[in-house]
């Protein structure tokens, strides 16, 4: 459970290595040129879903429970929001992934250009996201609402200070533990897969000048 720092180290070291020395493979490997219609559904639904899901995790795990209490958000309100919002995001992620995976088998052009890494990424994401969605939508509503903000939240934050409070995790339901383990493995896998493109989201684009001039070394030194 406490292997998070290890996984993050792999992510950073391997990611750095790939960026510096295998930089030409650092891309968002699109197959849009081969097929557009399914991609339109799969990719858009998945990506927006995962952005929502990410924000949901920040809200649930990184932001301490006390903050909500201080803001006057009651536990029942929080859980209602978490189940509705998180459930929707999770469903979007899973549906998007399934569409993208199906697409890989449906269209020969796309199929021919899918690598083992591509399948691994999709399947692993489906596992992680599927579990997460199941936990949010089914577990929470049938077995019982689990207050992860008292166990997983503080434990996860303790990982960043490199003094993990593993004791907090003893009572956590197994489903949650599996979800966490699988995601940690996924973090470590990022630098070896296409997922690296998430770090290249060109957020600075709106700020830059539309036209770009570059010169061979030193051309304008003479000005």
């Amino acid at each position: 459970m406490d292997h998070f720092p290890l996984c993050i180290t792999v992510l950073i070291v391997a990611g750095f290595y790939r960026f510096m020395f295998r930089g030409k493979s650092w891309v968002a490997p699109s197959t849009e040129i081969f097929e557009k219609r399914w991609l339109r559904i799969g990719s858009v639904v998945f990506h927006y879903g995962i952005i929502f899901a990410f924000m949901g995790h920040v809200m649930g795990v990184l932001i301490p429970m006390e903050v909500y209490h201080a803001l006057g958000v009651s536990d029942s309100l929080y859980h209602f929001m978490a189940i509705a919002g998180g459930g929707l995001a999770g469903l979007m992620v899973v549906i998007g992934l399934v569409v993208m995976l199906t697409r890989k088998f449906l269209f020969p052009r796309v199929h021919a250009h899918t690598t083992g890494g591509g399948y691994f990424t999709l399947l692993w994401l489906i596992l992680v996201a599927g579990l997460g969605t199941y936990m949010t939508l089914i577990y929470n509503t049938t077995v019982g609402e689990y207050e992860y903000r008292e166990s997983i939240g503080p434990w996860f934050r303790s990982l960043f200070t490199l003094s993990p409070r593993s004791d907090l995790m003893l009572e956590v339901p197994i489903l949650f533990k599996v979800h966490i383990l699988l995601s940690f493995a996924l973090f470590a896998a990022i630098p070896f897969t296409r997922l690296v493109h998430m770090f290249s989201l060109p957020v600075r684009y709106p700020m830059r000048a539309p036209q770009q001039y570059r010169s061979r070394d030193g051309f304008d030194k003479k000005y």
Partner: protein
Amino acid sequence: MRIKAQVAMVMHLDKCIGCHTCSVSCKNVWTNRPGTEYVWFNNVETRPGVGYPKEWENTDRYKGGWVLRNGKLHLRAGGPVSKLANIFYNPNMADLNDFYEPWTYDFQQLHKREKGESIPVARPKSMITGKYMDKPQWGPNWDDDLAGGTESVSNDPNFRKLQEHIKLEYEKTFMMYLPRICEHCLNPSCVASCPSGALYKRDEDGIVLVDQDACRGWRFCMGGCPYHKVYYNWNTHKAEKCNFCYPRTEAGLPTLCSESCVGRIRYIGVVLYDADQVKAAASVEDPKDLYESQLSVFLDPFDPEVIKKAQEQGINHSWIQSAQESPVYKMAIKWKIALPLHPEYRTLPMVWYVPPLSPIMHHIANEQDLSVDGYIPAVDQMRIPMEYLASILTADDTHQIRRVLLKMTAMRIHMRAKTVGGVDELKKSQLLKEANTTAEELEEMVRLLAVAKYNERFVIPTGRREMLDDLYFMQGSCSIEDLAPPEGRK
């Protein structure tokens, strides 16, 4: 005044024989790799026709280039914010069907097959899926020489415009070839469309390139270029485009397409322009004024003031001299017989075209018997080709096309009078007047258009290196030495 130099090209369409030698030599050097089989940095299309990719001029569909809204330039496909919102799926991007599915043949089958009743055949095999293709549906130059029939012709976006008042009579139609490369625009919309800032224009020579390290494969440049001259390499997942053969031009050699051109239709030269004026020139209200406003950004390389400023700004003597001898300067700016391709896209393209006279002359049944003053009505009667050319080259302004064609006709008559005779001098001078030209200018034009040799057609200064600090150290070194710390450096 911010003076920049640009290497530009002129293509004299009358001389293009549609042989595709240019495309093949380009392909063999630049796009003969997995991932780029469908890519043609240089392609030659038969017009009227849909072109490559299909209907690339259909701006409603691919949304390339710039539009003017409230006096300001905007990317037609939407600015940075809308691009970021669409980054997971690019609605305007062409897919492989708009180009074609590249294939090869199973040649092994030809010599490995057992003796049998039927003739062995090499079946087409897709280079995308590796599977046999039963029947290729579209391919490179599928509609060459109008063989796409009325279907291809009537899907030509330029032709559709004309069809509102002209019914296509297939056997009476005209035909021309349009070789195309990247325009290396002064106001490139591909550069502005790239979220990663990977595309850039080189300061020294204006060549537009894709930085392969910075490209992340977002693909907005593909549709962002209204000429559809940026391509997606599905193997490296990065964009690639015509690089104006910069390793050759830096050495003073013409591009491969120009070098190998059978019709010798291509000219390469340097033009000087004022980079500060580019934006204003691209923002004039009426698209028909774009041609003139584009011309206004160029600087006279003989003007002492310009020369002085250019030198101050680091443009050296050999570049200024090349600008003075530039065939592009003569044809596009001095004689104004070369026109930009689709100026209405507002990218200020830098490959210029001398419109073809032949589609017009072909309609004149017996040129020998035609009197000189018959040429002007003859030009004027050719409404269809003229409007078609105008829709390609002058944003529908037929006056400019008429002006150029009259000048070309005047050149033809003048030379006929000189070499064959039998032309009425008075009538000829009337034609020259109408065409607004002089005998001297026409003879100069003939020289460049018809007889010019290699070094007159290609006036290319070598790439500049004197700005490098360590020239002495670099002497005799190999490029890998850049990776190690230079020992000779102080």
